[in-house]
């Protein structure tokens, strides 16, 4: 059924069986997959890019080519980082989103320590930039199987 736009209410939570995940569960899930997506702004437009990542304590660390759009755009910016996993046959899945400040690690000592995380990179460009995302907001949701 179509609803005329003038009848739209203001903010309300997404309806349906989207179950919020608590932060402890989100932290466990952050250790369960190797690839996430970083959301940033480039030339005033939103961008999403898959990245390999690792955790350094609670921080999300990514490794990208030094001259990449991501490396240029996320310096001292607030970014979102998302991971998810879905199963099509059962129509279930979950997602976790981290929002926080990103900064590029510049000191040789910090970079040496981050290299030990074993981060992988698709690296279609020279050089490495290690970007640290410090989580300020951590949230997650799960979709349960809704089939009758």
């Amino acid at each position: 059924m179509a609803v005329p736009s003038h009848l739209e209410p203001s903010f309300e939570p997404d309806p349906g069986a989207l179950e919020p995940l608590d932060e402890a569960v989100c932290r466990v899930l952050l250790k369960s997959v190797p690839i996430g997506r970083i959301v940033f702004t480039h030339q005033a437009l939103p961008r999403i890019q898959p990245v390999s990542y690792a955790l350094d304590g609670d921080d999300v660390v990514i490794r990208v080519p030094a001259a990449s759009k991501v490396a240029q755009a996320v310096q001292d910016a607030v970014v979102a980082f998302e991971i998810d996993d879905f199963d099509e046959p059962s129509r279930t899945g979950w997602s976790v989103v981290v929002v926080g400040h990103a900064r590029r690690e510049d000191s040789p000592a910090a970079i040496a320590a981050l290299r030990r995380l074993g981060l992988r990179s698709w690296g279609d460009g020279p050089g490495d930039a290690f970007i640290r995302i410090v989580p300020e907001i951590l949230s997650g949701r799960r979709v349960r199987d809704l089939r009758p």
Partner: protein
Amino acid sequence: MTGERRAAETLTEDQCLDLLVTVPVGRVAFTDRALPAIQPVNFVMDGTDVVLRTGRGSKLAIAMRRAVVAFEAGAFDPVTHAGWTVTVLGEARTVTDPAELARLAALPLRVWAGGSRDHYIRISGRYISGRRLWEAAA
């Protein structure tokens, strides 16, 4: 200069469109209260446009009124990290025309989450780009 090698292949728009129909879930990035936000969504392609369904009044529906958004879908091997990613960048708009709504309702768009999701959003496929990524370097 570590890890420099040819690791990615740029995909044509046709290749991107062929890949997009193979996955049921993508992610849409938008701005929510001045912060970057990203949310997984079920979607279906209508030509070069991405079509989503959400609840009216949802955060997504509100945020995507006439906004330029990015939509991404992809698939990766968890061990080698080889895979593909496609991004659609374009203006999102709420579909209100009854004839268009009727046509969209006939598309095979299956929404996993429950609840009333009668709000259709179309993201115009203005810029479609994609990459195939080979095994990631350690």
